[in-house]
């Protein structure tokens, strides 16, 4: 059980939320929580959200994008207020994670709100003082659609691909190749399924070993 400390609009449809969870056991970068909402008549809806935070701090950060026909995301983005209590379960997930014991170069590739677990990895990497290269390729519609824009702007390891701006357009295989670390890096790809599917198959075409590419897909056909 957590208490919402604060919330901030990140994009026109997205929000980051800070939650105090006194008995939080800590989490690794990339893990997620299940958030459960309960209506007065007992109806419940549970959805998973990646954490942007990691480590032992009992203050977690989520970031949520409002889905047009969503059941939980509209509540979290539009209705949730500081002081509200939120039922959470976690941390969950042992696969799509980055630990400071990993010393190889890391390429992060995000589509939209898929950047959230990757921001957790960037933060953990910085906090650990690791000198292994870690860079992010972030694909969003326009600059206004970036989560954690201020924070990411301070880094020189982020490349943006804007798909709906003039001169922009859907990410291509060539643009991907130009933006990512060479074969041999550990790769994390996160975002909508269509995006992840395209990016992962291009990476394999470019010679990246499938075994070094971890994917997390946000549903959809």
């Amino acid at each position, binding site marked *: 059980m957590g208490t919402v400390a604060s919330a901030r609009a990140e994009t026109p449809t997205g929000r980051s939320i800070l939650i105090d969870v006194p008995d939080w056991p800590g989490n690794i970068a990339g893990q997620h929580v299940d958030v459960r909402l*309960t209506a007065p008549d007992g*109806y419940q809806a549970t959805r998973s959200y990646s954490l942007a935070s990691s480590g032992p701090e009992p203050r977690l950060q989520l970031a949520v994008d409002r889905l047009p026909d969503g059941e939980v995301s509209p509540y979290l983005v539009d209705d949730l207020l500081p002081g509200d209590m939120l039922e959470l379960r976690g941390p969950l*997930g*042992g696969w799509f994670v980055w630990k400071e014991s990993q010393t190889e170069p890391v390429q992060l590739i995000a589509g939209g709100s898929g950047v959230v677990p990757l921001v957790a990895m960037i933060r953990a990497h910085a906090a650990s003082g690791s000198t292994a290269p870690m860079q992010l390729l972030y694909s969003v519609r326009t600059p206004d659609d970036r989560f954690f824009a201020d924070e990411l702007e301070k880094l020189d390891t982020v490349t943006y691909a804007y798909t709906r701006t003039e001169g922009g357009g859907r990410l291509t295989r060539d643009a991907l190749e130009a933006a990512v670390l060479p074969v041999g890096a550990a790769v994390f790809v996160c975002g909508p399924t269509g995006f992840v599917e395209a990016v992962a*198959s291009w990476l394999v075409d470019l010679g990246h070993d499938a075994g070094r590419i971890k*994917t997390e897909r946000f549903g959809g056909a």
Partner: protein
Amino acid sequence: MSIFTRGFSGRKRDENPALPPGQYLTEDFPVLSAGPTPNIHQDSWEFTITTETGQVHRWNWEQFMALPSEDIHTDIHCVTRWSKLGTTWRGVSLDTLFADVETNYGYVMEHAYGRYTTNVPYEDLRDGKAWIAHTFEGKPLDPEHGGPARLLVPHLYFWKSAKWITGLTMMKDDEPGFWEQNGYHIYGDPWKEQRYW
């Protein structure tokens, strides 16, 4: 302990007894793989069953497709909480594939192209409960969804239905496969909400 979430009323669209606890209905077919979709060629495709004596039963694509296939109409439930009702498949029953297999072991490890594995009790694959499926909604199974062939064992959470199946190995004990080592339940019964450790 359940508390009420201030201001949440929900849409209550999912009062469907066919939905296991904690699941919501989707018309989509989400893809949630841990890595890239493998590219598998039918001419090199192979399915094997390996027993405790080391005996290997083997089928190539032609041999596999020559076996009798069945129409399957079933609900599927993903541990990430989506359920899809009334899905249609075509596949070869594991009862057919195991017809000449002799084993005394009680557990099976499913192996997929790539590194994916998942474990299941042998009895959960027999008596009309499981198939190697090659067709979905009347069309060849899409690679994204496990094509050319995936295991289909719909009474368990769908991570137990390994995509891109290539073989089954008999095991004496119930050893955890990929997701089972990464936080997920060893058995995975959706009606008991056996999601995590």
